[in-house]
């Protein structure tokens, strides 16, 4: 069986800056892969290349064994529907209520009827614990609540893979737990997840595999227990030491 998502030799340059220098990555269906590493290591760029918000300069991206790197127009839109993404800055639609944030794409993209879309959205918002906020506007929510709406919004498209781009980095510390709990539950339900994170506890406890990236390459990868307790690479050890013992 081919993996859900496969990245092969991915390259990305911004002018003279070589951000991704041949990254390989396999995400089996139902697996949770966490990517850790210092800022500027290319983690977020990697994620943004997967759903083509950034165009890679080399290598390939395969979803269910099919390359998606050359897709354009409606075919690309269709693939993006299958890959959900949650952003560090939430990017909720400020002019729409919480409920409408989750309803909008269902109606616009899937042509789901309003009633059905509302039912699905209400259900998802209940799962992320926001039943009371349906008619609020995002600006009136805490960061943690906004991020949970963003997760519900992505899930409403029934994606096969979810990308999480440092989704707790913009949150006050006391709000992080609620968001991570939602992600843990999602992982438990068998969602395929690729998670860029600074939350080492999440990476250690929830992931099937952890990748440490630095300087645009994967320096080390392995099961979380090994990477966190006995890293093979000097750079990984130094990074973990700095993060875990500040």
């Amino acid at each position, binding site marked *: 069986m081919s993996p859900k998502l496969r990245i092969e030799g991915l390259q990305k340059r911004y002018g003279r800056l070589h951000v991704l220098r041949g990254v390989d990555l396999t995400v089996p269906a139902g697996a949770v892969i966490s990517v850790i590493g210092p800022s500027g290591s290319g983690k977020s760029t990697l994620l943004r290349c997967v759903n083509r918000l950034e165009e890679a300069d080399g290598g390939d991206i395969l979803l269910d064994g099919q390359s998606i790197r050359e897709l354009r127009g409606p075919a690309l*839109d269709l693939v993006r529907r299958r890959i959900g993404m949650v952003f560090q800055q939430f990017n909720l639609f400020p002019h729409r209520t919480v409920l409408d944030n989750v309803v909008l794409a269902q109606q616009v993209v899937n042509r789901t009827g309003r009633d059905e879309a509302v039912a699905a959205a209400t259900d998802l918002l209940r799962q992320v614990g926001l039943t009371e906020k349906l008619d609020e506007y995002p600006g009136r929510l805490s960061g943690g609540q906004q991020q949970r709406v963003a997760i519900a919004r992505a899930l409403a498209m029934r994606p096969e893979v979810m990308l999480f781009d440092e989704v707790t980095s913009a949150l006050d510390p006391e709000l992080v737990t609620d968001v991570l709990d939602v992600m843990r539950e999602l992982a438990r339900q068998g969602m395929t997840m690729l998670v860029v994170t600074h939350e080492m506890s999440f990476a250690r406890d929830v992931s099937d595999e952890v990748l440490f990236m630095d300087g645009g390459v994967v320096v080390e990868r392995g099961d979380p227990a090994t990477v966190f307790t006995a890293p093979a690479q000097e750079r990984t050890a130094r990074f973990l030491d700095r993060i875990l013992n500040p």
Partner: protein
Amino acid sequence: MDVFFRQYFDLGVMWTHFPKVLAGFWITVELSLIAGALSMVWGLALALVRGSRARALAPARVLTVAYIDVFRGIPLLLVVLVISGSLPFIEFLPRWVRAPELFGQPDVFWFGAAALTVTYGAYLAEVFRAGLEAVPRGQLEASRSLGMSHSEAMRHVVLPQAVRSVVPPLLNDFIALMKDTSLVQVIGIVEVVRAGREVQGETFNSSALTLGALLFLVVTLPLARFVDRSMARNRPAGASTGGPA
């Protein structure tokens, strides 16, 4: 002092000529609303072309920038004269362009509306562009990541936010447009200023123009107040989503 009041505030003159001035003001209002609506549509179209990133639209983008520069840089009066003075003689144009007499309005009315649209479209294009650029890039990215096409994302997510944020400057430009309708009198439209001027010519008294000024203020003052208030209201709300920057 008496003579001052007689010249500018003669209630008798105002009363006698009120119907004529009011009829002129009605033309002013019609012209403002029609040209205002048309220049909004035109300005938004220009802004969308100018702001697009598609490679195929590159030549159109250049033309748009040139258009905006030109029509912001030349006087409206000149545009009025150029359009009304020569369009009727350009034979290959369809008749409804050379001699438009639509909805019961004479051709000069439509030449005036066209001139205002052409000029104010350029101004409003810049207003809309500012609005579009003020919508954070993440809004488009979030929409695209949900599977929306570029045009779906623009229509449902980016444009509504852009338009909302530029309502105050749009109204400002509408006030300016309304005042500038007085320029189209040179091609024979008896709008409120022309009406007042004709009365002034007959009576050697400016009170009908004062009346015209008052009619303008009835519309422009509340609009200006509304603009001030909505700008004050918009300021603190600013970027309500997105967490710490």
